[in-house]
């Protein structure tokens, strides 16, 4: 298995710059997820690592070898495509063994590797079938099998679960995580689904407009998002953002005046900005709890109640008509049109300055 290093990598299509001087180190045997909205450049970056896209500037190295000029076939990576890219007229066995036959691997060795891969992926009984006779999940397994048998230095996954239904997606998510564990392989996985990223990644690379917004473990990103974009992208339901004004700052604390609520005192490491400047208060739905309207930092009217069984999501309209989502454990007794108060532990709140950057805060 190999580490992958991207050094000031850029990609340009004509005058459009889609990846801008991006640097990243992926450690050997690490499971890294590129996460971001459509068009952020995550798939392009993956294809640049694979060798399917040229690199406009910068350097990509795999296992210490610069591969900028190395054709895709000689980079020693396997890729699983979004639409599986199975050869439609070949059987499962032929699809999986195609790459091995092209490199002159002996027939017995091919059979052994295909058998092993299909055993791991539980598709041993499908070897004679054609792709058109299989379900989406089975096709995806064949595509992964094709990647496994080549014993690559790294696996690249380009949104491989996006064509599957919700149930199958959860199942395949677990299987890929299990596969990573059993193969102990370097894997790079592209997705726009933050749940996939959170559940599978050793580290997540959050991308926007061809740039890295933040890199870290799922919990690091969840607890310490660097800016409003990362804070809003990770977590479901997404973080509530409330406009606020800095009322004052002291040693390790900051006073915020919230437009639709009472002033709050929050713990921050430092506040380099000015008193009176704009800020944003970020509150995760699961960190808010209900109180009486008089006792809460915020107060509002329940507009919608979503009962999910284990949790309930309450959509609460504040005095300034801003909607706040509250996640309550179990079944809430709140009803539509109830007046409720909302409170939170100051340590759980996130504060972002006028530029949208997070103010460092102590661990909750």
């Amino acid at each position, binding site marked *: 298995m190999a580490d992958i290093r991207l050094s000031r990598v850029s990609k340009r299509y004509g005058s459009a710059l889609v990846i801008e001087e991006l640097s990243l180190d992926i450690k050997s045997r690490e499971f890294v997820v590129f996460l971001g909205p459509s068009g952020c450049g995550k798939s392009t970056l993956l294809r640049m690592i*694979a060798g*399917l896209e040229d690199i406009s500037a910068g350097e990509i190295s795999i296992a210490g070898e610069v591969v900028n000029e190395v*054709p*895709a*076939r000689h980079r020693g*990576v*396997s*890729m699983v*495509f*979004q*639409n599986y*890219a*199975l*050869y*439609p*007229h*070949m059987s499962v066995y032929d699809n999986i063994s*195609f*790459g091995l036959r*092209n*490199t002159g691997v002996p027939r017995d060795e091919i059979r052994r590797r295909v058998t092993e891969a299909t055993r791991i992926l539980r598709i041993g009984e499908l070897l004679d079938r054609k792709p058109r006779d299989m379900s989406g999940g089975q096709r995806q397994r064949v595509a992964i099998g*094709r990647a496994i048998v*080549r014993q690559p230095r790294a696996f690249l996954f380009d949104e491989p679960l996006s064509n599957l239904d919700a149930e199958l997606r959860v199942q395949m998510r677990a299987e890929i995580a299990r596969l990573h564990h059993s193969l102990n392989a370097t894997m790079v996985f592209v997705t726009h689904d933050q749940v996939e990223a959170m559940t599978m990644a050793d580290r997540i690379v959050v991308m926007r407009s061809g740039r890295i917004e933040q890199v870290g473990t799922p919990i690091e990103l969840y607890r310490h998002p660097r800016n409003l974009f990362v804070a809003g992208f990770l977590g479901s339901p997404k973080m509530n953002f409330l406009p606020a004004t800095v009322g004052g700052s002291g040693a390790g604390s900051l006073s915020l005046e919230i437009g639709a609520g009472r002033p709050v005192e929050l713990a921050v490491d430092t506040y380099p900005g000015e008193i009176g400047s704009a800020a944003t208060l970020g509150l995760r739905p699961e960190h808010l709890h209900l109180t009486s309207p008089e006792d809460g930092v915020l107060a509002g009217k329940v507009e919608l109640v979503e009962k999910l069984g284990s949790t309930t999501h309450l959509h609460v309209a504040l005095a300034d008509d801003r909607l706040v989502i509250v996640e309550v454990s179990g079944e809430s007794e709140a009803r539509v049109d109830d007046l409720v108060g909302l409170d939170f532990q100051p340590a759980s709140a996130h504060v972002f300055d006028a530029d949208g950057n997070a103010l460092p805060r102590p661990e909750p």
Partner: protein
Amino acid sequence: MTTQELSGALPEATTSGRPAWFRRSDAWQGYLFIAPFLLVYCVFLVYPLFKGFWISLHDWELVGTYREFIGFLNYEDLWYDSLFWKSLWNTIRFVALTVPSMTLLAMLLALAVSKRTRTHAVLRAVFFGSSVFSVSVVTFIWQMMLNGERGMLAHIFEALGLVPIDYLRDSFWAMPSLVVTTLWWGVGLPLALFVAALQQIPEELYEAAELDHASRWTVLWRITLPSIRRTIVLVLVLQIVAHFQIFGQPLLMTRGGPADSTRSLVQLIYDTGFRDWQIGYAASMAMVLFAIMLVVSMIQLFLGREERS
């Protein structure tokens, strides 16, 4: 409504759906929609086919009113007509030379110009361009090329100190000359079909093949050709059906000669019917040609059905 009423109403609602009169009028509306097509189909295709067969059972002169029912005597005469067999053989030879070379040429050109770039689009337009000419223009151009005294090839041969060949009057070269002319004229349509088929192959298949170390030959043989198999069958059948009907090129370029070596079946049908006025006999030849093309079409249908299953 009581439960009894409900249970009584349900069977009718589920079994009949709509009242019978409405369903009948629905069906009539359907027939009305397809009526214009059926009318044209019957008047211009079905009727002439049966009329042609009926004529072929007669000694039927083009001019005048002489019509005598003779059963299958025309077909019996065909069996002993050496010119018919020669024309049929010429036609088969033309088809056998043209169809594979046309298919191969169109496929190679399509592989070379199928990318979605401006240069390839211009080249596709150029290659398709010759298809828009009428047969008289095409044969005129190629007569100027192939003429043994004043043709372009004759000039080139002379410049090289070689003896020019009069391609259209040479019994060996006349048929290949018609084939080359037809290739130049007709490559546009199969080219367009192949380009469309090639452009439908997902790019990801080629990327997967690149990662699978497939050579260019392997990619062509194992990915591209199997992916356009249905189009290859379609092109082959369209070409066979089209080229069995070759007429204009031998008529205008060789007059069927030399020594009937390029006389095609349709040309013989035309001469028999409209020069010799033996419409009944010509119709029997046309029926044979129809039967050949029907068999080819059936083979395509059969192959297409097998592919789908």
